[in-house]
């Protein structure tokens, strides 16, 4: 390391003269990173190659199949009347995810507004409480929460007398905010000059109007961060649906995938399982590639705020 830095120093001098753009140290770092990133990508390729294999190719040592086939996709999605189920599960997952995203954006912006821009008695105490709830591991409330949902009436929604076996436990809590996101949002709202709100108040605007017209447009990037993390969390949630959903017709893709695996009786046909897994992953990968910036910003915010 010491030498690389010396080299780096030399390179810096060299660059000034106009020859190599990158220092020796940087090149070495690049090579190491390139090597590591290959191992990071290989699992994806392995998934793809497995899904293109015929069953007899699975045991061999070839990375890519000699005769690629889409048979695994056909069996996984179309054989045995499976397609309507996959469509159903996709629709359920999209519905739950969409409602959860809307709920979380709406609730966090409203609640953060109260903590960031309104003066009321008990505000600071309550905000401390918000921060404190971040420390409660979700599993502590797992079992009692199940009991609470079992006692809350659903009035026959999705054919259920209480919240169990409905989408409600997976969506309604999103409308009550999330401690960390509220915290994140509050920090951003506080950075908006108070004068903007004061001016609007003098013009006779109500708080809801100010919230909508002045604050919401300004915090859109934070909303995007919240939206994509909520999307990812809801799309990939396994424990929640496992606990709360019973009917196959109400399953999410995650439960469906597990069911699909179970159909093989503990000995999965890996090519089919990888085909199904890949398809279930693709929406998240696409969203990630489209909104990369927000994901990475979001993570760095997490680090810088908490660190």
């Amino acid at each position, binding site marked *: 390391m010491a030498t690389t830095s010396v080299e780096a120093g030399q390179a810096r001098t060299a660059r000034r003269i106009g020859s190599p753009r990158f220092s020796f140290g940087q090149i070495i770092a690049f090579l190491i990173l*390139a090597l590591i990133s290959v191992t990071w990508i290989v699992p994806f390729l392995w998934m793809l190659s497995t899904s293109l294999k015929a069953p007899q190719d699975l045991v061999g040592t070839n990375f890519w199949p000699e005769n690629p086939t889409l048979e695994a996709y056909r069996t996984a999605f179309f054989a045995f009347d499976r397609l309507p189920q996959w469509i159903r599960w996709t629709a359920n997952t999209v519905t739950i995810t969409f409602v959860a995203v809307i709920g979380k954006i709406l609730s966090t912006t409203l609640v953060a507004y109260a903590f960031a821009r309104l003066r009321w008695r008990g505000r600071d105490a309550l905000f401390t409480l918000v921060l404190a709830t971040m420390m409660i591991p979700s*599993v502590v409330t797992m079992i009692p929460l199940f009991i609470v949902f079992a006692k809350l009436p659903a009035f026959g929604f999705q054919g259920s007398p209480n919240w169990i076996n409905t989408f409600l436990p997976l969506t309604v809590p999103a409308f009550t905010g999330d401690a960390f996101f509220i915290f994140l949002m509050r920090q951003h709202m506080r950075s908006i000059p108070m004068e903007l709100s004061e001016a609007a108040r003098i013009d006779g605007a109500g708080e809801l109007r100010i919230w909508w017209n002045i604050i919401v447009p300004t915090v859109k990037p934070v909303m995007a961060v919240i939206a994509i993390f909520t999307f990812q969390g809801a799309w990939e949630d396994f424990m929640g649906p496992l606990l709360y959903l019973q009917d196959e017709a109400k399953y999410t893709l995650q439960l469906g995938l597990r069911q699909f695996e179970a159909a093989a009786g503990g000995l999965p046909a890996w090519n089919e399982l990888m085909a199904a897994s890949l398809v279930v992953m693709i929406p998240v990968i696409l969203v990630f590639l489209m909104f990369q910036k927000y994901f990475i910003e979001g993570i760095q915010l997490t*680090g810088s705020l908490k660190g």
Partner: protein
Amino acid sequence: MSVAAERPKVSQPRPFLRPAIKEELTGWLFASPWIIGFLLFTAAPMLFSIYASFTDYNITTTPKWTGVANYQKLFRDPYFFTSLANTFWMVIVKTPIVIVVSIALALLLAMNVPGGRFFRTVFYLPNVLAGVAAVFLWQWILAPNGLLNQALGVFGIEGPAWFSNPDWTKPGLVVMGMWWIGSNVLIYLAGIKGIPKELYEAADIDGAVGWARTWNITLPLLSPTIFFQVVTGIIGAFQIFSTAFIISNNDPFFASQSLLFYVLYLYYRAFGKIGPAGFQMGYASAMAWILFVIIMIFTLVQLWLSKRWVYYESEG
């Protein structure tokens, strides 16, 4: 506090007091989604579970008060200690590995290498894949004749039967977990980039180079982030559920219970997969509260340690 500070403003002579009350009310109204959620989905369950932990309770019957019997039983329960041991194994082995590897990657990325953006994307990508599909993928990679063992075979190493040999199930989880360190890397990277340039420039004058710079400037200034990561790592280890659940296929005795983690055991108890007496919400609630206390202790110890050891910029 700020409310008190604002009060003189309110008491200034004005035609009527309504606006102040209105603002109070508006504040509570805007905060009400969280307050309702807190009462309904956090406070009520927690209070109830405290109570339930002192009872014999299976949801359908009314809870029967048994005092501290559940807690007493826990400390004589071999499964409880197995699950604690498994969980601590993950904390002790995985946390340091994750920290070292992700700081190393972050340091490399911080060198402004060509293609840095691409590398960040690649390392972070697995973090968006937390679902069942990713677990299946790794079960396949870590199959005894899977990709990893084939790769090891190239170097003449005979890889273990990762997810079936009880000695290798947890190492398997650690190997698998490496794929998800991207978010840690990014957090460290943000931390490194946040270190003021002047500090390095000052060090340059002092003649500090390379490793010395890293050791004397970067790491100390990164220590708050590292401590935060240690705490989240520990809390994370105590919450392992889905991955172990899927790998062990909802079988409490899978691979000699080497994947029986704390929360998994709690779940098995609650729904009657372990133990002769069916499902035990009281017992599970007691477990939940012990978990809560353990995590609180860790968090407080970390906070205390960080006050003593962590280097804050203001001090320097």
